[in-house]
């Protein structure tokens, strides 16, 4: 939700009579100064600092990064993190698409209810949500008992990657639903009706008309869930297993247990690069889909 809001900022309606702004440059600078200073001091400088640390400690060079790819372990963790993030993105899209679609076709009253339901976990404490999953997934917990009783499966989920996957999907679902809804709401549903009027079946009209129009929103929502999963700490720490850590746990462990700042910084920077790359990729894909959509008109 937050990133889409950021992206929308530049598209403000042009103001009639552009020259109407009154006031001086000094005032503008004074208004922006605290935010710029805060951003430089608490964001830009610390990040720059860990970049420097990662290539200078203990000796100058890229060995901290080289280690990421050579020790085998880090690479395995990274692969697992990417797979979990991909799983979360797919699961969230599978759940968010029907949900957001329903929000566009239902009555305003139902829409308000669906909105509130999405926003509840959005506002709920992340720890509380994860803790609730712990109770459900623990040995002897409701899910465990249910699986045993109905399917005869004895597989306590707590401490496994599937548990992390399920809980993370739930925690991040609002971040997929909200931008997706914003995007689906823009689609002119008469186009689907028109396709049906031209003889397409319901399913075909949906596949050939609605889905391509929804594609940019789906890409954006999936990418957001993916990106947010990459740096997730609480869920894998509480629900995952120490044998199957994700990258955020690795960073914390390096810092807290071995005090290997340079190593942790290198992993962190690498995580940042992957995140930014994914964000740019999703933007590119989404733009292409939008361009195709426009060309099709």
């Amino acid at each position: 939700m937050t990133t889409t809001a950021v992206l929308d900022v530049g598209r403000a309606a042009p103001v009639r009579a552009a020259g109407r702004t009154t006031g001086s440059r000094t005032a503008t600078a004074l208004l922006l100064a605290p935010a710029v200073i805060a951003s430089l001091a608490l964001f830009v400088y610390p990040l720059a600092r860990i970049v420097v640390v990662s290539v200078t400690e203990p000796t100058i060079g890229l060995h901290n990064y080289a280690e990421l790819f050579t020790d085998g372990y880090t690479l395995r963790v990274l692969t697992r993190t990417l797979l979990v993030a991909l799983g979360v993105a797919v699961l969230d899209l599978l759940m968010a698409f029907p949900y957001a679609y329903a929000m566009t076709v239902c009555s305003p009253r139902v829409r308000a209810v669906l909105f509130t339901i999405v926003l509840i976990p959005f506002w709920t404490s992340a720890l509380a949500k994860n803790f609730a999953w712990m109770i459900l997934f623990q040995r002897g917990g409701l899910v465990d008992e249910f699986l045993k009783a109905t399917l005869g499966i004895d597989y306590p989920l707590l401490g496994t990657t599937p548990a992390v996957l399920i809980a993370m999907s739930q925690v991040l679902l609002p971040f997929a639903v909200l931008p997706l809804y914003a995007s689906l709401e823009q689609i002119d549903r008469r186009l689907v009706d028109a396709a049906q009027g031209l003889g397409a079946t319901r399913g075909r009209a949906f596949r050939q008309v609605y889905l391509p129009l929804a594609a940019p929103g789906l890409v954006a929502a999936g990418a957001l869930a993916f990106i947010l999963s990459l740096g997730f700490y609480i869920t894998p720490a509480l629900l995952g297993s120490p044998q199957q850590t994700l990258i955020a746990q690795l960073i914390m462990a390096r810092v807290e247990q071995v005090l290997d700042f340079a190593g942790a910084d290198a992993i962190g920077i690498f995580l940042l690069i992957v995140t930014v790359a994914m964000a740019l990729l999703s933007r590119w894909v989404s733009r292409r889909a939008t361009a195709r959509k426009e060309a099709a008109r």
Partner: protein
Amino acid sequence: MNARAGRLEIRELVKHYGGDGPAAVAGIDLTIDPGEFITLLGPSGSGKTTTLNMIAGFVPPTSGSILLGGTDLTGLQPHKRGFGMVFQNYALFPHMSVFDNVAYPLRQRGKSKAEIRKLVLDIVERFGLAGLERRRPAQLSGGQQQRVALARALVFSPPVLLLDEPLGALDRKLRAQLQLELKKLHQEVGLTFVFVTHDQDEAMYLSDRIAVFDEGRIDGMGRPAELYDDPGTLFVANFLGEANTFAGRFADPRTYAWNDEKWRTGEGDHPAEAVLVVRPERTRVFAPGEVPPGWNSVGAIVTDVSRLGPTSRIDLAFPDGRAGAAVLPSTDAVQVRVGDDVRAAWDLPSQAFVTP
């Protein structure tokens, strides 16, 4: 509402937004008499809104000056000018009631509570808004909103009322009704109205005088009927209603030649380079050979006949391939058929010469 009489003078007003682009306003001179309803008419980007914003004080002019009753206002901040202004979307304060909206300018002027109450209730009553004082703008119809905007702009008795396309967003019927109200209001209050619009019908209907804007300049200026009959420039002729135009040349001072036609020019002076203009409703259609003596005429082919009720519109194609039209009483148009070879004709008072 007493008008503090004063002539509004605009002298050599220029606005350049910087960069390499042409000036948004490229030298405007305009004198507006007290109580006059003047319309700044033009297409979008012609500089009319920028001019209004400079009068209001929202846009500082690059050069030139604005005077009211001889006092120079050019450098004065907008809130010190004391002009009333009505905006295209009315710009009513959404978080205030109708009462508070109308009371706003009075509170800025430090009036007493009792006085504010009296003035607001008076004007609210006059504008037919009694009983709506506690409503929010969002709960009003478009017409009611417009009346609140007018009441708010007039309650403090400004010397001049500026109106920035206040009818632009309305549907046709409401628009016609509000035009009528606006005209009546102007007659009642006797204030100077400076009205901006791109709708020529609106301008013709409302104004004492119209200033037609094109590319930052005033291209034509005058009373609506005068400007319509004698537009002066081709731009004004085309912008104010429709025109059949013939770009020929003077064969001699009394003869104008276009294509194979030779036309009489009538008395009076003409610009050396001129285009002949005839309004469709002053163009008549005759069978060849039946043109009344003393009329000018041109061969044309009828491309379409539409009956609009009391009048009919005949679309014509002239020998150079360009389209034109004649609007006749329907009784005169019954015999005209599509494809007919006719003469489009007009008498001398109906033609005007304009600069290209």
